[in-house]
């Protein structure tokens, strides 16, 4: 379908993508790797204009310009805290694009294998779109972050999957008759429903893993459309993303002490919603900003555990200031960073780095945990699930088995919280009722500012 020059350029672009993925796996090479990937993509897009004999060039170019401007504006403007939502959204639109390409090719598919590949792309692309929309809503807290389950959910899911397969068989049989588009419409609708039902039962804390899996799905759809179009570059790029995305999904799940299957189907089995509901009106010890300032100011060693609440309150700079102040007083302070602090693995590191916190103060979970027993005060800012001892002690809990920061080993724990509302995973935290725990209620930024002021006059 294209000359040798075009194929050669596609090969170079494919090599760029491999180098990009390799680069992105190491901290020193990550940024360069991303750039190599972008260069490969640019090359591929330029080449397609050169080697293909295309109509509608003006419309195509105009659409690309609009999309590119929108993409740059969206990714530049969005707050760092909303980054996971944006990744979910970009993944969804990619899946949508692949599904549309396959829909257009459906009528013209010449062989059984290309027809199957096109149907596969429509199905999985639509699952990816709908799934990404649900993850977006969950992350944005436009809908509940808790696992959404209802009686008969698994049966409904199974029924919709079967109906979807039935629609695919229908489309397969009537093709190349134009009525294939009617069948395809059913495939699209049912696949969207599958995507929604697939992600609804995933609990809030596990959403990043669902995004990663949907990302791998989208990769596979791109690979399948490459097969349909006989385009090696799409085939290679899509397969690379599908394969590496699968591995990445497993690594992310492992970092949370979960298996991918238990995340996706855990809620279906009913085990995942068993949060402890009995507490809530038990007494907690709350204190004022001055008390917290005294606790911190006279400690020898303090570990800060930042969570998403810190980011939501935009308090990264305030906490940085507080830590500087404590260090001037001779207090040894480090940040204990849970691998999934924030909304995604590594999210918190990005947020703190943005606020100018030196890399050396960020301690990974295992290192931080070995420091806990010699720590005087742990200051937990807007985090909950990642320090919840239920992950170690109560096998019925949805977060059981997730590695946590063992802040209960420290001599005292201070929680800065907005309210007694449970965390993202929706589970009560026993540690809040522990005698060595002090709570300071309020917006993280307000609270930190007050503590900072009290510390100045101490």
């Amino acid at each position, binding site marked *: 379908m294209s000359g040798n020059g075009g194929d050669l350029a596609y090969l170079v672009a494919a090599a760029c993508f491999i180098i990009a993925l390799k680069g992105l796996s190491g901290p020193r090479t*990550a940024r360069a790797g991303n750039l190599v990937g972008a260069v490969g993509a640019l090359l591929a897009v330029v080449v397609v204009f050169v080697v293909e004999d*295309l109509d509608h060039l003006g419309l195509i170019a105009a659409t690309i310009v609009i999309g590119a401007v929108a993409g740059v504006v969206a990714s530049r403007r969005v707050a760092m805290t909303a980054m996971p939502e944006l990744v979910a959204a970009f993944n969804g639109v990619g899946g949508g694009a692949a599904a549309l390409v396959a829909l257009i090719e459906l009528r013209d598919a010449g062989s059984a294998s290309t027809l199957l590949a096109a149907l596969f792309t429509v199905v999985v692309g639509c699952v990816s779109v709908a799934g990404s929309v649900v993850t977006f809503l969950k992350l944005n807290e436009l809908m509940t972050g808790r696992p959404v389950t209802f009686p008969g959910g698994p049966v409904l899911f199974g029924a919709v999957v079967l109906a979807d397969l039935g629609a695919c068989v229908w489309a397969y049989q009537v093709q190349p008759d134009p009525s294939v588009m009617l069948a395809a419409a059913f495939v699209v609708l049912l696949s969207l429903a599958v995507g929604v039902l697939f992600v609804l039962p995933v609990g809030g804390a596990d959403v990043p893993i669902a995004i990663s899996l949907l990302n791998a799905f989208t990769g596979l759809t791109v690979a399948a459309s490459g097969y349909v179009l006989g385009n090696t570059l799409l*085939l290679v790029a899509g397969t690379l993303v599908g394969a*590496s995305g699968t591995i990445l999904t497993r690594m992310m799940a492992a970092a949370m002490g979960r298996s991918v299957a238990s995340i996706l189907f855990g809620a279906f089995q009913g085990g995942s919603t068993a949060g402890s509901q009995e507490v809530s009106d038990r007494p907690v010890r709350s204190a004022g900003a001055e008390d917290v300032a005294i606790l911190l100011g006279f400690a020898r060693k303090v570990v800060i555990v930042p969570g998403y609440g810190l980011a939501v309150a935009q308090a990264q700079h305030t906490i940085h200031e507080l830590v500087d102040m404590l260090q001037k007083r001779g207090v040894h302070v*480090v940040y204990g960073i849970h691998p999934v602090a924030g909304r995604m693995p590594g999210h918190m590191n990005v947020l703190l780095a943005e606020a100018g916190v030196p890399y050396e103060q960020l301690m990974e979970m295992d290192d931080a945990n070995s420091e806990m027993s010699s720590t005087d005060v742990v200051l937990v800012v807007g985090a909950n699930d990642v320090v919840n001892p239920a992950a170690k002690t109560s096998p019925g809990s949805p977060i059981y088995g997730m590695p946590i920061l063992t802040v209960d080993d420290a001599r005292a724990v201070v929680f800065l919280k907005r309210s007694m509302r449970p965390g993202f995973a929706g589970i009560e935290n026993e540690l809040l009722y522990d005698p060595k725990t002090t709570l300071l209620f309020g917006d993280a930024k307000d609270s930190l500012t007050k503590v900072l002021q009290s510390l100045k006059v101490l």
Partner: protein
Amino acid sequence: MSEGMALLTVFVLAVFVGFEVIAKVSTVLHTPLMSGANAIHGVILVGAIIVTGHATGTVDLGLGLLAILLATLNLVGGFVVTDRMLEMFGRGRKPPPRADADDDRSAPRA
């Protein structure tokens, strides 16, 4: 080798490359890596351009242009947002602010 067989060969080899290329990744890089991989599948733009450029009917043209719009968002937005995440990492690498940090670490644990 038929074209189908050649594509299948490429597919299988790419699966292995995809598995091997990201063997060990620090959790800190999971999000940027996911985001970068996400950007790479935006090359579906190439496919969208091909089908749109060969579109004959108005419906196909409309669907194709929509696919181009979505794919461009994915591709351009994906790479830019990944770069923005990674930009933060380079900035953090400064000399250690406190020389006595190691002393505290070896202190006896009470």
